[in-house]
């Protein structure tokens, strides 16, 4: 997958490994907890960035797959006493199956039509979470979801969950980078380069679009299951349309055609409300403003920032020597 990505993964893993040290500083000790949500969110945005940046498809329905994972895990474990691991697998299969059923007709749609279709799908699932009270307890949600455990070790503490979530997220990152640097990734990017040439080279775009859609749905589902087992309580608002819109925003703000950007976007948007907390009720105003500024000044997303800084510094260094 290229040396740069390998080095990136190495440094990023070290960062993740050491990050919990901030927990020692009392003012920011809750950052470890927030980072768990960043990790869960990043699992979804990474898949979305492959879908948007490479397959050129938009989705405003990924909160639904997150929810399908969470509810499948939650219901099977808390209500039917099934072991969390097979429940997690069941969530993946359900999400993947739903993605195939919804994706096959939807991905034939273009642009805004696709946005609307995925949005409608997400909203319908959200309504189902609210209305099938016998199964989901409706708007009240339900608790008593057990923590995950493996070989007798229970993922109970914040720290244990932090490492679990980020281990999964990094595995997903590697998985996606592998795809991007393979015949599949090349095929997907070829479609952006020249659709007509890609066609005559035998690239069957629609097949990969579906595959990527299904994979991103499965990843969102895993994130949902992990969420349910960490928080131990689920209710519908977590999985609503506005979360889908936020996910989309994270991908674009991070830098659309980059899974790294998707992680950065997830981190920024997840931490932003925390940093704007001191503004109290005006946080929403500041939130909008920050987004606006990023869109105006960083057209290629946050991920392009280091490059821009680098380029603005190097000429000066060169002229000095």
């Amino acid at each position, binding site marked *: 997958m290229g040396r740069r990505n390998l080095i990136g993964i190495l440094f990023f893993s070290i960062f993740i490994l050491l990050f919990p040290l901030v927990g020692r500083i009392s003012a920011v000790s809750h950052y470890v907890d927030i980072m768990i949500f960043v990790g869960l969110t990043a699992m979804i945005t990474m898949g979305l960035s492959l879908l948007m940046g490479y397959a050129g498809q938009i989705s405003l329905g990924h909160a639904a797959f997150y929810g399908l994972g969470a509810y499948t895990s939650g219901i099977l474990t808390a209500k039917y006493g099934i072991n969390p691991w097979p429940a997690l697998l069941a969530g993946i299969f359900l999400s993947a199956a739903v993605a195939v059923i919804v994706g096959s007709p939807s991905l034939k749609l273009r642009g805004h039509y696709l946005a609307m279709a995925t949005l409608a799908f997400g909203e319908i699932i959200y309504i189902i979470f609210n209305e099938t009270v016998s199964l989901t307890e409706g708007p009240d949600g339900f608790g008593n979801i057990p923590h995950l455990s493996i070989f007798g070790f229970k993922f109970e503490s914040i720290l244990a969950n932090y490492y679990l979530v980020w281990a999964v997220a990094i595995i997903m990152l590697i*998985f*996606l980078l*592998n*795809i991007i640097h*393979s*015949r*599949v*990734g*090349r*095929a997907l*990017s*070829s479609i*952006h*380069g*020249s659709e*007509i*040439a*890609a*066609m*005559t*080279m*035998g*690239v*069957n775009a629609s097949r*990969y679009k579906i*595959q*990527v859609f299904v*994979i991103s749905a499965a990843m969102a589902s895993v994130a949902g299951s992990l969420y349910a087992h960490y928080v131990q309580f689920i209710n519908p608002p977590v999985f609503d349309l506005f979360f889908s819109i936020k996910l989309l925003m994270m991908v674009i703000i991070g830098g659309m055609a980059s899974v790294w950007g998707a992680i950065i976007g997830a981190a920024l948007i997840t931490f932003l409300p925390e940093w704007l907390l001191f503004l109290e009720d005006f946080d929403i105003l500041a939130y909008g403003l920050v987004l606006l500024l990023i869109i105006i000044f960083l057209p290629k997303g946050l991920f392009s920032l280091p490059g821009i800084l680098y380029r603005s510094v190097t000429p000066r260094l060169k002229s000095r020597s």
Partner: protein
Amino acid sequence: MFQSENILEISSLTKAFGGLVAIFDLDFTVSRGIIKAIIGPNGAGKTTLFNLISGVLSSDTGDIIFNGQPVTKYKPHQLAERGISRTFQTVELFSEMTVLQNVMIGRHIRTRKGVLSVGLKLPASRREERAIFEKARYYLDFVGLEEKADQEAGNLPLGQQKLLEIARALATEPKLLLLDEPAAGLNETETEMAAQLFKVIRDEGITIILVEHDMNLVMNVAEEVLVLDYGRKIADDKPEVVRSDPEVINAYLGVDIEYA
């Protein structure tokens, strides 16, 4: 196995854009293993014909038989798989990818590994990736671009971009190669080298259909010449016969021979 003598048989092919008939009731065949040139004035329908043969456009009426098999309504990827590949008059490279990656896309149709396999880097998919890489290098070598492998394709000069398109097309291991004005914009030496390259490709057993305005090149390499005018066939014969055909001269020079 029985192999028909003609690699391509086209009958009563018609394609109109709104009121404009770009190809009208066209019949012709291409025998296996030759270089056949298609010439004709601007707007005669040559590129449209390529678009029909490669499945980019679908015809209004008519039949296309490729390698003994009717392929009239096939999609581009199905045709690529069966062995039709092409280049473009207006270069269509994946300009933000490297030269090598462009050729690697050419291997796409000849490789199989899916999303899960490449994502998990299963041993079989590593082997396949390795093979893609090596084949791609081979075809780059073949057209003489091996030194440019890691450059961005969009940064190459036009002549090399055209060569790269040929390498990419060859990487699909075609039986029939469609070249749309491959020499346009090339200088004399480059054109001469291109002519050599076409002959080598033909000698490897790949049939070539060549759309070209450069008459010297056409007369030099082609075994047969089809002449189109306003989407119709006005001649289809050996180069030397076509060259002296009054109707062809008329179409090309705009001189009305009968009254001249």
